[in-house]
């Protein structure tokens, strides 16, 4: 058969976009529709289609040898972009499943799903952005729907406050990002990564370049919720509706990372930018982020907020992927960060979806409220235990392998001190993740809790996430291999 035209390489993003438009059309036909099956169904179909497309492209080897570059290099579809598209779409699928029950009875469901789809489209584009321009546009395409989604529970003070903070910090960060981009443009006279990479060395303007690079870095740090750009994260995750917390903490964070990976490896590659030691910057960021995240998470009373902080901490681990570059194990460390992001996409989403489930049952949010839940909802609690332990790096889930490989690779790159700090944090994280397990299984149930109904969608999502998390141990190679290859392709 004839080879597919190039544009098909962008199929995932296109499909997502189309889904979003479809939803809007549906909404305009029957506004305020509460037809969960139709709306969630459409979204799920679109997402899965995109997922299938991404997987298909990856398997058929579109990602190999530099990938496909479209629109004069504005869009690059390679292993990494497809890999991350898979993360985004899987998370989106889980979130959609969960929202099916979570939104029961809500109006404006169509908008909700549409926004989710638009944000996902933005992510997919970020993953394959080939120029700083597209980076910024897709960045905004992701951010704006996110602000709205966080505020989805319009008359819930928490939700609104969260979205406000998210918006303000986000606006500030995007301004910083944009300014940084403008400086880079000033130095290099281009926005395409190739142009940037090409013109960056022989420009004397080290200071301007440096400021630009660091500002861009700041912009990404906002998306990845890395200290000190993380302040929005705890509130946003805590305040927003459960599925959205899951979505932001997993997918949106991954989006931030993918763009950071690409920009810093391709545009500001180590071999190119000698004057700005951004690796050191990422090391600082990684250490501060994981430390602050984990330590702050250790003493929370609110499970959701604990997870929020823990996801900040996890971002710190992933940052090792950039912080340990230049140690001779580049492909390995970067690949392992990517793998960790994927596994994290499932286990962290699952964890937040469990919270969503708890919110759906409206049992409270503190640890004490979870006491003895294990005897009432054993399956869900077992799944939650898997998420917690996998997040902590105990081999009930793939999180163990990705995390340990990440640390190991860091040692291999010679950054043993980075790994050592990571270890201290990891142990601390085990402590607070165990608090959930302990509440669910060890403590006695404090009486008056009745669980009415076991929502199908939420359960399916949680169980699916758990199953994938567990299966990722034996099937680890399926994700680790492409990740390392994709990472290797960047250098």
């Amino acid at each position, binding site marked *: 058969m004839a080879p597919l035209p190039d544009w098909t390489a962008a199929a995932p993003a296109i499909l997502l976009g189309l889904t979003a438009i479809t939803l809007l059309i549906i909404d305009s036909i029957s506004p305020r529709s509460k037809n969960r099956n139709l709306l969630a169904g459409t979204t799920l179909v679109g997402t899965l289609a995109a997922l299938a497309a991404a997987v298909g492209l990856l398997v058929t080897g579109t990602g190999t040898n530099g990938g496909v570059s479209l629109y004069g290099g504005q869009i690059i579809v390679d292993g990494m972009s497809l890999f991350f598209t898979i993360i985004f779409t899987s998370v989106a699928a889980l979130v959609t499943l969960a929202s099916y029950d979570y939104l029961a009875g809500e109006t404006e469901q169509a908008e909700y799903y549409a926004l989710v789809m638009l944000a996902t489209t933005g992510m997919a584009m970020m993953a394959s952005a080939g120029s700083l321009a597209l980076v910024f546009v897709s960045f905004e395409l992701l951010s704006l729907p996110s*602000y709205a989604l966080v505020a989805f529970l319009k008359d819930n003070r928490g939700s609104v406050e969260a979205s406000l903070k998210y918006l303000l910090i986000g*606006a500030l960060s995007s301004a910083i990002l944009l300014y940084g981009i*403008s400086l880079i443009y000033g130095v290099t*006279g281009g926005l395409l990564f190739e142009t940037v990479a090409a013109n960056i060395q022989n420009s004397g303007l080290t200071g301007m370049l440096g400021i630009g690079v660091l500002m861009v870095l700041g912009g990404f740090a906002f998306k990845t919720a890395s200290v000190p750009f993380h302040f929005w994260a705890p509130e946003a995750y805590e305040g927003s509706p459960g599925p959205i917390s899951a979505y932001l903490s997993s997918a949106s964070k991954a989006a931030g990372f993918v763009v950071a990976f690409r920009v810093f490896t391709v545009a500001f590659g180590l071999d190119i930018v000698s004057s700005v030691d951004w690796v050191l910057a990422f090391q600082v960021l990684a250490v501060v982020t994981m430390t602050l995240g984990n330590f702050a998470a250790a003493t929370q009373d609110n499970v959701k907020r604990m997870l929020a902080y823990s996801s900040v901490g996890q971002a710190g681990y992933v940052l090792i992927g950039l912080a340990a570059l230049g140690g001779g194990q580049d492909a390995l460390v970067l690949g392992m960060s990517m793998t960790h992001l994927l596994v994290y996409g499932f286990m962290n989403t699952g964890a937040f979806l469990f919270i969503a489930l708890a919110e759906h049952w409206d049992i409270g949010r503190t640890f004490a409220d979870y006491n003895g839940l294990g005897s009432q909802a054993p399956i869900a609690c077992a799944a939650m235990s898997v998420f917690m332990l996998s997040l902590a790096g105990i081999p009930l889930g793939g999180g163990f392998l990705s995390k340990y490989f990440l640390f190991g690779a860091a040692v291999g790159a010679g950054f043993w001190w980075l790994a050592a700090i990571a270890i201290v944090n990891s142990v601390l994280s085990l402590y607070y993740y165990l608090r959930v397990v302990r509440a669910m299984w060890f403590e006695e149930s404090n009486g008056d809790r009745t669980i009415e109904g076991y929502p199908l969608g939420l359960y399916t999502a949680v169980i699916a996430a758990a199953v994938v998390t567990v299966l990722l141990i034996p099937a680890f190679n399926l994700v680790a291999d492409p990740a390392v290859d994709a990472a290797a392709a960047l250098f």
Partner: protein
Amino acid sequence: MVPVQYYLLLSAGLFCVGLFGILTRRNALVFLMSVEIMLTAANINFVAFSFQHGNLTGQVFSLFTIALAAAEVAVGIGIVLVLYRNFRGVDVTEAATMRW
């Protein structure tokens, strides 16, 4: 003609003004305006540099950013509205129920 450094200074100044506004004002709307100022600063850069480099990339991109800024404000206003509805005001420091 005016050398590019001056534009750079101007934009830097604007950026700082915006930042100053963000750090000092408590009104959500003023907050948003300050962000707009910062974005404008970036736009000035783009235009100036595009003129210096002699390619249109920057100018085109600045159009994009203007549009995005508008969208951002739109979303922002919406959020400010619900903020007003829930907190009886648009003081950003009021909404501080979630902390630590």
